[in-house]
């Protein structure tokens, strides 16, 4: 069964995942039996009653109420079982335990951001303790996204202007991938994250180390920190650093270059232009690129913006 499970389903890494799996197999195996049965009967009839001469006359059989009732009621009972079972598992997945550990999730094109109780922030990495219920309180800054962890069999749309919730208990330490499953534009398929499951104490110390957030680690030069931030904040999903043109202009050689804007005017890329483009991306869009970038106003502080600009400078 375990091997069969791996064939069609991802590893079950949450405490409730196996409930979904049991139902999954029940419905599929019943369906398989029905398919084989019905197709078997069909093939048998086609063989047994194949036309032997063009003059054959067939008997008049118009209907049979007993049969009609039988093949209505038995499937009805079957689907009601599947309905009730599915609903019961769903409700268990829906209602988070009261003591669940809460983490805030923000979706925006094309990055997942996580905020913890002590102000720690991460991008693209959700750190959680093993064996403890975690409740995600989610919202979107732009369009609808959807938070999907196949290993946990859970999914919930993340909607602008309202909060949605999701909860799970990770069984053991390890990593699981998060996909965005509501289409959200150009880099929809790159909007992934990792759930990183720690032992309880390890998680606590990780959390303490990252409290506050947003200040430069002492052992890094500003440009090095900028490089780290560019990955962490998913800048590099759209801006390459090797000259390839992606959703946005490449950063290679961009500093102090002359760019043509969508309104035909030109601009020299200096610190002020870069800062404006991070805080107010739609103000001056480079020709040939879609106006799809989000503002990072209120998300990146001045130190972080400076570090990213320093990093861009090193790419010349």
């Amino acid at each position, binding site marked *: 069964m375990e091997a069969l499970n791996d064939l069609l389903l991802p590893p079950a890494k949450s405490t409730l995942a196996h409930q979904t799996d049991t139902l999954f197999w029940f419905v599929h195996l019943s369906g398989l039996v029905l398919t084989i049965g019905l197709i078997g009967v069909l093939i048998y009839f086609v063989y047994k009653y*194949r036309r032997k001469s063009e003059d054959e006359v*067939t*008997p008049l*059989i118009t209907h049979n109420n007993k049969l009609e009732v039988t093949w209505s009621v038995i499937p009805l009972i079957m689907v009601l079982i599947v309905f009730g079972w*599915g609903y019961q598992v769903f409700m268990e997945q*829906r209602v988070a335990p009261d003591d669940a550990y809460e983490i805030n999730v923000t979706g925006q094109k094309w990055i997942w951001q996580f905020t913890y109780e002590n102000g720690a922030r991460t991008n693209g990495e959700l750190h959680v303790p093993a064996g403890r219920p975690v409740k995600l309180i989610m919202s979107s800054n732009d369009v609808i996204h959807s938070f*999907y962890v196949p290993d946990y069999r859970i999914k919930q749309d993340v909607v*602008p202007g309202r909060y949605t919730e999701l909860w799970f208990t990770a069984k053991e330490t390890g990593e699981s991938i998060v996909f965005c499953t509501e*289409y959200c*534009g150009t880099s929809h398929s790159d909007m992934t994250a990792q759930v990183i499951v720690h032992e309880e104490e390890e998680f606590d110390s990780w959390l303490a180390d990252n409290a506050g957030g947003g200040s430069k680690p002492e052992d890094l030069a500003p440009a090095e920190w900028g490089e780290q931030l560019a990955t962490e904040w998913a800048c590099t999903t759209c801006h390459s650093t090797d000259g390839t043109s992606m959703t946005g202009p490449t950063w290679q050689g961009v500093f102090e270059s002359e760019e043509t804007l969508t309104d035909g005017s030109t601009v020299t890329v200096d610190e002020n232009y870069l800062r404006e483009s991070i805080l107010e991306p739609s103000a001056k869009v480079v020709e040939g690129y879609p106006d799809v970038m989000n503002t990072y106003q209120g998300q990146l502080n001045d130190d972080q913006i400076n570090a990213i600009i320093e990093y861009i400078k090193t790419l010349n």
Partner: protein
Amino acid sequence: MATAETNLKKIQVQRYEPESDPDQHYLNEETGLWAWLTTVDHKKIGLMYLASVTFFFFVGGIMALLVRTELWTPAKTFIEANTYNQIFTLHGAIMVFLFLVPSVPAALGNFFLPLQLGAKDVAFPRLNLLSYYLYVAGALIALISIVNGGIDTGWTFYTPYSSTTGGAVTIMTFGVFVIGFSSILTGVNFITTIHKMRAPGLSWDKLSLFCWSLYATSIIQILATPVLAITLALVGMERILGIGIFDPALGGDPVLYQHFFWFYSHPAVYIMIVPGFGIVSEVISTFSKKHIFGYWAIALSSLAIAFIGFLVWGHHMFVSGQASLASMVFSFLTFLVGIPTGIKMFNWTATLYKGSIRVASPLLYIFGFFFLFLVGGLTGIVLGSIALNVHLHDTYYVVAHFHFVMVGGMVMAFLAGVHYWWPKMTGRMYNETMAKISCVTIFIGFNVTFLPQFVMGSLGMPRRYFNYIEQFQIYHQISTVGSYILGIGFMMIFYYLIRSLYKGKKAEPNPWGSRALEWQVNSLPPLHNFHHTPVIINGPYDYHKPMDEFQLGLAENGHGHAPQHEAEVSSQEPTKAE
């Protein structure tokens, strides 16, 4: 001479045999381009629809092949992400709005509904032509959006993405809006025709199941399509005038859009598949030479699907943030709508019992339908279960599921219908061997394409992904190979059907020995279908009666309509035609 007895009067019926090789038929009575463009003949309009939907099927198919080819590798294969997003959007929009919705009703339905009713035409022939031109106009407007910036929202146009993204969303939604009216007018026309234009003696219990299915479909078209029109108009207003309806930045509610959209688009699934059910009933009965089993069960289950189908839209929204209670109710109703569909499958199987089965190509396509639709239906049960839906929603499992229903079910039924009625429409027979070979090719190609999608879907592969993680590559590659096989299958059909027009054997009026009314007129049918209004004595599935009882009957006096329209007509002393 035969006598048809109504509850009010007896009708003396004179049988007549159609001319065997008439000089005059619907294709040569009016000729020239202008005659075609202004024709009100339902058969020609049906053919124009058939040509149009076939064209768009190929356009949409090419899009599908581009998508599949791009997915050969986990990263970029040969097109950019934005182009990819536009292509899958167009694939969906073209296939749904320009092919699936109009295919059976507007093409085959237009051609055969009046013939099966013993009528000269549909109730409103000019309205019928207007439907066609609205369809063409809507299609052209939708195509303009391709060259005018493209559209990358997916065929579902979810807000607030669709109200904020660039491109030609407004043009595209306007095009779909216009096509919607074409669909509504066809529905109005068909319902009126079925109620008012049945030949004398054609009581409701003698109505063909194809007509019943079109009747159910028309009800959905009339009731659901206006909601789509309103919704798309609201999206347009939001984009152009900045009125906040769906975009939370303007004070709107994005989930409201999903309710509106699926209120149309779920019933629309039944607009696409229910007419296909009608074809299945016709073909199974004809090629097993047997009375259809459970006539009323099949007829009424179409209506049941039409009505319950309106109440299940929320099953597209289990993870959208709608209330758990709402999800429960929608899940429950979703399972209920599965029952009438199951009833049909069982009745079709039972029809084969003690039949005289000839596996000609139309029936072979129906068998393809049978297996693929069964898989599509049962995976629908999987998706209807809320807990499983949470895991599988918006993955390739869903993609595979609706392709099994829409391509495996609907397209196979459509192809069965085209092969079944081709002799009547064109007066030619196609190459039967090639027809069987391409049916098998399509069946294999389809399964190779979509079975791996079930597997990668349940493993967690999300849909509408340009890049994907490497573990899914093997499934994507198998799927891509399958899509090429599928493409070759469709090209083969196109080839031998076109070839039959020039080199095909001339078709007999009734090559399959069917008892249905449309086969009792000439191939090709006369311009006005019947030289005289026929009186219907036997039902379309009365295979227990000898063939010569099915020659067209004509009332000796008057037009044959009894004062009460629902007259029951029985045959006495059947005689040979004079």
